[in-house]
């Protein structure tokens, strides 16, 4: 079963097209690793898939309502506890129980700690734990392993694996080896041609 089908997708950053003719399908239980040099448009592609920015053209099927997105920032409130942060998102996504999310990212012992007193790695884990609460089939991560140590990267990989085992799918933009069985997509091949910019041709 296909979880995500992308066809003929073109995206822009700052009004300038960076990617075009992006096409791939993501099956149930599959993970996709995005690779490409800095500035090649990984973040742009992921934000487009998450529905945060409109595509110039092309189709994404199903739409953003199937996608849970974890970007560079974790969206944590320092003044609230770990549990309160997660409970808020659980409420937004209509999930009751935050225990599985705490467990998956080894946060159970920290649940009453205020988010501002967490280490950078712990904050990241808290941010990633939110994905468990979303109950959405396709997880999208943009550089999820920043500030994570080896053990935490392992936690993250296991959480993604268990999501895949439950029939989900995942797209991860990362430079390190996560130890996941995954397809690799190099997005450098989708670099937009200059012609896509309405101001590409000379205007005298």
């Amino acid at each position, binding site marked *: 079963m296909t979880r995500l089908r992308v066809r003929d997708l073109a995206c822009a950053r700052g009004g300038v097209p960076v990617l075009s003719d992006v096409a791939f399908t993501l099956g149930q239980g599959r993970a996709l690793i995005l690779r490409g040099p800095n500035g090649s448009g990984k973040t742009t592609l992921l*934000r487009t898939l*998450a*529905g*945060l*920015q*409109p595509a110039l053209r092309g189709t994404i099927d199903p739409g*953003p*309502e199937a*996608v*849970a*997105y974890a*970007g*560079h*920032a*974790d*969206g*944590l*409130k320092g*003044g*609230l506890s770990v549990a309160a942060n997660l409970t*808020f*998102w659980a*409420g*937004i*996504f*209509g999930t009751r129980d935050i225990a599985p999310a705490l467990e998956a990212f080894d946060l159970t012992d920290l649940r009453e700690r205020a988010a501002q007193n967490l280490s950078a790695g712990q904050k990241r884990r808290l941010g990633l734990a*939110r994905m468990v609460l979303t109950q959405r089939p396709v997880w999208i991560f943009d550089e999820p392993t920043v500030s994570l140590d080896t053990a935490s990267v392992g936690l993250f990989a296991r959480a993604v694996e268990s999501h895949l085992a439950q029939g989900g799918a995942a797209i991860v933009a990362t430079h390190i080896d996560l130890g996941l069985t995954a397809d690799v997509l190099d997005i450098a091949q989708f670099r937009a041609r200059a012609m896509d910019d309405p101001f590409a041709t000379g205007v005298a």
Partner: protein
Amino acid sequence: MIRLVARDLMLAVRAGGGFGLGVAFFLIVVTLVPFAMGPDTTRLSVIAPGVLWLGALLACLLSLDRMFALDFEDGTLDLLATAPIPLEGVVAAKALAHWLTTGLPLTLVAPMLAVLLNLPAQGFTWLVVSLALGTPALSMIGAFGAALTVGLKRGGLLLSLLVLPLYVPTLIFGAEVARRGAEGMMVSTPLALLAGVSGSVLALLPFAAAGALRVNLR
């Protein structure tokens, strides 16, 4: 949505600034007016409704730039935009939280400050009614301005420049209700117009503000 309001209120209380700042500003403005206008109580009582409305309006403006800025910086807004609640709802919730921490306290302290300015006794009710009806519109218009400027580094001044002209109709009708109330005249016409302005602002601006937020999140 309720959760969002509740969380914003909790964060405002924890941060401390939310409730106090606007009210304190309002108090200071009203205290300064007699120093500028002279202590003559008859003169003060004439200008009291206008001064109170203007003070409340400026106090509303103070905390606007933080309405979305914090959530924008820490990525919460990205996540809310991808969450299964409409962004229009997020805007409405934010405006409501802003009103509860700013507009509502201002409305409640306005009668006390009105005493300082010698507002005629018959004007108190209409002052409170006009503020209660008008300040939600001020918060919503402010939310629109904040949504427009959320991506900017120093958006605070620009925010005031954008929002203040939009405050004109609300101010005119709101202050008119308070003034006519203080003079013992009929208030029904401006009151109906004020309610109309507030109602349409609350009904329509969330869409414009959500549109602006979506653009800023790209």
